[in-house]
């Protein structure tokens, strides 16, 4: 264990954290700067969204968000997220499992490919799919002969959002799984568990908080994605407008209140996401604390 002199000095110094031994004046100025910056950059814009949204009263606000086109935009956004998030969760777990627990040829290439959606600008992602499925694109003319339209439909929106949010779960899990190693799984397999049993009883419980964290980030991005969706949606009001697109459209129509009303809904979704995320982070920290606490130590 630690030597006695250190522990006694920590005991005496306990009320005062040595790192905070600056004069109170310096401390308060630093805190004020930090808080001021956060309020200016984060809280003030958020407050303004709500101020403008309710600027003309609750009646106008409700009318704005109950408009048929707005309702359709909210519906499309939620449906898109409901398809994309489970898809990328399942895929993310499979990919992370493969990368973290197995060695195979082309693994680093796979990791690079998985990071690609983050490296490419969303607008370019949209353009790629226009080039692929557009009337002047590679597959577009063939598909339209069969009467299949992909670009400028909700299907295209789901595809680009799925592409853009693919890395969230994988990235979150790969590092976690690699850190955990595969000893527990090997033990389970040795004891006669099947592959699926091992995954369900050992791997999944180990990664669950990381998984939820990835899912939340994926969901937030799926709802908020703008650039790539703008390119492939065709912006048909009430049909292929998602919430971010609809906010921009209302703003361009000089409907400031309506635009901020929809923006406030998206902001509320973001706040819900953040709250869930904080809970998850707290859980992760707690689990780690328990894990290290149980650890007999070196």
């Amino acid at each position, binding site marked *: 264990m630690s030597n006695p002199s250190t522990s006694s000095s920590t005991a005496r110094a306990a009320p005062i954290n040595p790192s905070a031994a600056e004069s109170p004046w310096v401390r308060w100025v630093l805190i004020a700067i930090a808080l001021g910056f956060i309020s200016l950059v984060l809280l003030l814009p958020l407050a303004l969204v709500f101020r403008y949204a309710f600027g003309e009263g609750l009646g106008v606000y409700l009318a704005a968000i*109950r408009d*048929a086109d707005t309702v359709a935009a909210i519906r499309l956004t939620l449906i898109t997220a409901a398809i994309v998030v489970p898809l990328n969760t399942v895929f993310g777990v499979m990919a992370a499992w493969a990368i973290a627990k197995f060695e195979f040829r082309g693994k680093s290439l796979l990791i690079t490919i998985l990071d690609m959606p983050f490296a490419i600008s969303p607008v370019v992602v949209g353009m790629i799919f226009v080039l692929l499925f557009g009337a002047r694109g590679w597959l577009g003319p063939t598909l339209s002969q069969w009467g299949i339209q992909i670009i400028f439909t909700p299907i295209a929106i789901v595809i680009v959002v799925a592409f853009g949010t693919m890395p969230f779960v994988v990235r979150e899990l790969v590092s976690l799984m690699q850190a955990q190693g595969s000893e527990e799984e090997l033990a389970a397999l040795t004891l006669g568990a099947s592959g699926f049993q091992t995954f369900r009883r050992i791997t999944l419980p180990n990664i669950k908080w990381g998984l939820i964290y990835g899912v939340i980030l994926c969901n937030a991005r799926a709802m908020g994605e703008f650039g790539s969706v703008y390119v492939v949606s065709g912006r048909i009001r*009430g049909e292929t407008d998602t919430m971010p697109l609809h906010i921009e459209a209302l703003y361009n129509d000089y409907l400031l209140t309506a635009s901020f009303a929809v923006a406030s809904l998206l902001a509320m979704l973001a706040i819900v996401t953040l709250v869930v995320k904080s*809970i998850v982070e707290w859980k992760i920290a707690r689990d780690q604390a328990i894990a290290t606490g149980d650890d007999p130590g070196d």
Partner: protein
Amino acid sequence: MNASPTPAALYTVATLACACMLAIFASPGCGDFEAGADRAILNVSYDATRGFYRELNDEFARHWREKTGERIRVRMSHGGSGAQARSVMDGLPADVVTLALAGDIDAIARQSRLLPENWQGKLPHNSAPYTSTLGFLVRKGNPRDIHTWSDLAREGIQVITPNPRTSGVAQWNYLAMWGYALRRELGSDFVAKMNDPAHARDVARAQQVAREFVASVYRNVAVMDSGARSATNTFIQRGIGDVLINWENESLLGSRDLDAAGLEMIVPTVSILAEPTVAVVERTAERRGNTDLARAYLEFLYSDFAQDLAGRYYFRPVTEKALTKYAHQFPALELFTVDEVFGGWAEALRVHFRDGGTFDQIYAR
């Protein structure tokens, strides 16, 4: 560990929140999608027309039902005019296009052959059922005494206009100033003179003066936003500048109650004419069995109702009857077109707005 909620439970909370929202919005009384419509056509339009077409579509649906008994619906797509044209070429199944520039519809006709190249002759008034021009938005009482383009070049006047490299309306602003200067130098028959070799020397001198004039206006530009919407924001919300140049119809749209916003509108008497044009995308409409409906829809734009509606949305109507009615709202102006003065949009873009073009030259100095 066992006491902690399962991942599923936690995520259920989040999904439940979303489900609640869905339930609220799916409640009766909102989200009437007119599922009963027998047929629908898609109108791909530009940004500033949403209010106008919303009212027009309802009336057209009523009109069509009275005439044929069929229930129809018009779906709308709005966006930047050029981007909308590209979407149609890439397969956005528009039955009709109602865009800001004839050039955008030309591009669709040339590059994708979805409509014949002579589309512009198929409807009255060059297929432009409403027009617009540029207006000056100034502070109430016009404290800086701004009436015409030359006032923008006066010392100390702060002008708000977006960047012509990124904004469509900013290109119109620029060309309007340029054309105004030519008109001032060459007289009211300047278009004829520009096509007359006998006046070549005068024209060359006038072009030089115009260039100097435009440069002096751009020296007065206080904030150069990237688009019309943000320029309007700069002028109205942030209160910067003495004058904002924007579409006559959009300036009035941006602040329906100009008086309450402490603003007024000045329309310069010599200016540029914008002709937003409309066309049936014939191959798409035919494939979707909508040719009759699409044609009737565009013809409806010339009806008394539509012309009157255009006037209410501050577009300049084209039929005699509506023009007479809105004469007080739209004072008679001397308007020139891009074709007359600049030899068409392609040429104007090439000379003025390409990399290293005239705008780059005068703005860099």
